């Protein structure tokens, strides 16, 4: 069967199926190519690195801002923020925090931080680290993506425009639907080819969310700038890590619940229901929310005890 002999509607159906196969193959090819054979090793305790992985530079700025507010180094003043009177940029260790304190030496809009080159520069180290770990694309990955996109474009336009030419030669002009389909498939091909994260990066953020699910389960017991009553995960950094791993929305109910409102409207790309490889500043759903952690009972799943009710662990 020669597909170019098909009638117009039949060819449109054929082209939809063909484009679907090409796009699926493109996505599959990219995932295979960008999946590291070994699990990368990165600092999973660095909230800014995790925030960059999950949501990029803007997410680092959001997390850093909330952290500095919780620590009393930045203060909110209506729709603006400014450095606290007694705060000094030298009192913080991380470049991004120092850059933010310098930026807001005078009161300014929250949105200003997203337009500042100096703050972008302070985030560069995270991009470099994640590129080295093949979690976000480097030049090599970009080039490979481009090659795959060119091949897909060749296939999609080649088949589509061949039929267009045949139709025009036959004196038909009703090729509008096909041209729309060709353009749509090219747009989708570009989107499929260039996600923000590599496949390893997408898996890594899912894994980090799975490992840190215990944090999410007790957001409501976290105090701003402090630790939860259990105080088990490193005082002062729990809300920061919660925001880094799951987004600002995860802070709802915690002492830092103002955070989501602080950035609302300042970044149009934010979404409340983000996938793990997109820019997002809100509550990404993690894996199973069930917690294996033990309660105050002496035996429970997740412990080294032998199961449910018992007279101690014994194990």
């Amino acid at each position: 069967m020669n597909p170019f002999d098909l009638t117009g509607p039949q060819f449109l159906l054929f082209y939809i199926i063909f484009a679907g196969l090409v796009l699926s193959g493109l996505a599959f090819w990219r995932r295979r190519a960008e999946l590291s054979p070994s699990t990368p090793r990165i600092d999973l305790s660095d909230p800014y690195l995790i925030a960059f992985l999950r949501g990029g530079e803007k997410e680092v700025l959001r997390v850093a801002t909330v952290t500095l507010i919780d620590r009393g180094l930045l203060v909110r003043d209506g729709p603006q923020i400014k450095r606290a009177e007694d705060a000094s940029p030298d009192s913080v260790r991380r470049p991004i925090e120092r850059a933010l304190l310098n930026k807001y030496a005078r009161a300014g809009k929250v949105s200003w931080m997203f337009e500042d080159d100096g703050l972008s520069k302070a985030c560069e180290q995270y991009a470099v680290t994640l590129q080295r770990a093949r979690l976000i694309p480097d030049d090599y990955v970009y080039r490979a993506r481009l090659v795959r996109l060119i091949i897909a474009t060749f296939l999609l336009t080649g088949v589509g425009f061949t039929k267009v030419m045949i139709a025009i030669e036959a004196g038909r002009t009703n090729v509008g639907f096909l041209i729309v389909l060709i353009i749509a498939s090219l747009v989708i091909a570009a989107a499929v080819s260039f996600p923000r994260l590599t496949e390893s990066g997408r898996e890594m953020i899912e894994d980090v969310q799975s490992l840190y699910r215990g944090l999410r389960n007790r957001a409501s017991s976290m105090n701003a700038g402090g630790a939860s009553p259990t105080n088990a995960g490193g005082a002062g950094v729990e809300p920061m890590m919660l925001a880094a791993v799951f987004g600002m929305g995860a802070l709802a109910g915690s002492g830092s619940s103002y955070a989501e409102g602080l950035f609302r409207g300042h970044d149009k790309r934010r979404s409340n229901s983000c996938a793990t490889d997109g820019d997002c500043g809100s509550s990404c759903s993690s894996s199973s929310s069930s917690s294996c952690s033990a309660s105050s009972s002496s035996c429970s799943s997740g412990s080294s005890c032998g199961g449910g009710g018992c007279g101690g662990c014994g194990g």
Partner: protein
Amino acid sequence: MAVRDRFGLGWRAKLALGILSNLDRIDIVEVIADDYFRASHRERRALRTLAAQTPVTLHGVSLGMASSVPVDTKRLDQIARLCDEVEPVSWSEHLAFVRGGGIEIGHLAAPPRSAATVSGAIANLRRAREIVGVSPQMENVATLIDPPGSDRDEATWVSQIIRDSESDLLLDLHNLHANSVNFNFDPIDYISHIPPEQISAIHLAGGKWIGRPNARRLLDDHLHDVPGPVYQLLEEVGARATRPLTVILERDGNFPPVEWLLEQLDLARRAVARGRARRSAAAA
């Protein structure tokens, strides 16, 4: 490269941040294997990611190895698959039974210490080695009652099993401490029964006293700090064990600040170092 003693914590979701933030002070993490038997692909992949950051050892709680009943092949397959995926440095189970007559006890129960359970445990260990590819380290358990039907003491029973099965012992020192005070025996004498070359791992934990004043029992609950006598036993093991030890601090709830747990790990490091120094001095 010389292999050194390793010190780590049991992985618990609530401790995740504390553990991942202190990998410079934690050499190894122990993960409960059973939590991942029915876990999604994504959760198991997360465990692989954890294993890429720090060495992981898997700890089983449901095989019921110390029983005259053959261990369930399906459960061994599950742990074999998990070991293949995660590539832990070791895996371990308990010298306990957890089911009988088709009924799950929900507890790590000490079996009768008899010839039947010795041979049953050895057969089960052989099956485990065949299916998983590596023998588990076997852990002594705590018990509040002296198992009825026993015809030998615990030290004899444990050492027979690990010697005849050529398995390593994961010596839970709080279980040993609890049993020694509950049943009035000398824990040092117990340790001296164990072939020192077969001690490869240690568990530390805490517990609480329960019962009436004249009939008190020490309960191993993993909710309290490691008591002083356990560190003394650890020093003793450090002085005797001929191989590098993996020492895991188990804490299942009532979590203190992670720094407090790390200080207990430091105490464990110092206890083993004292024991090793004694051993070196004796050899010199």
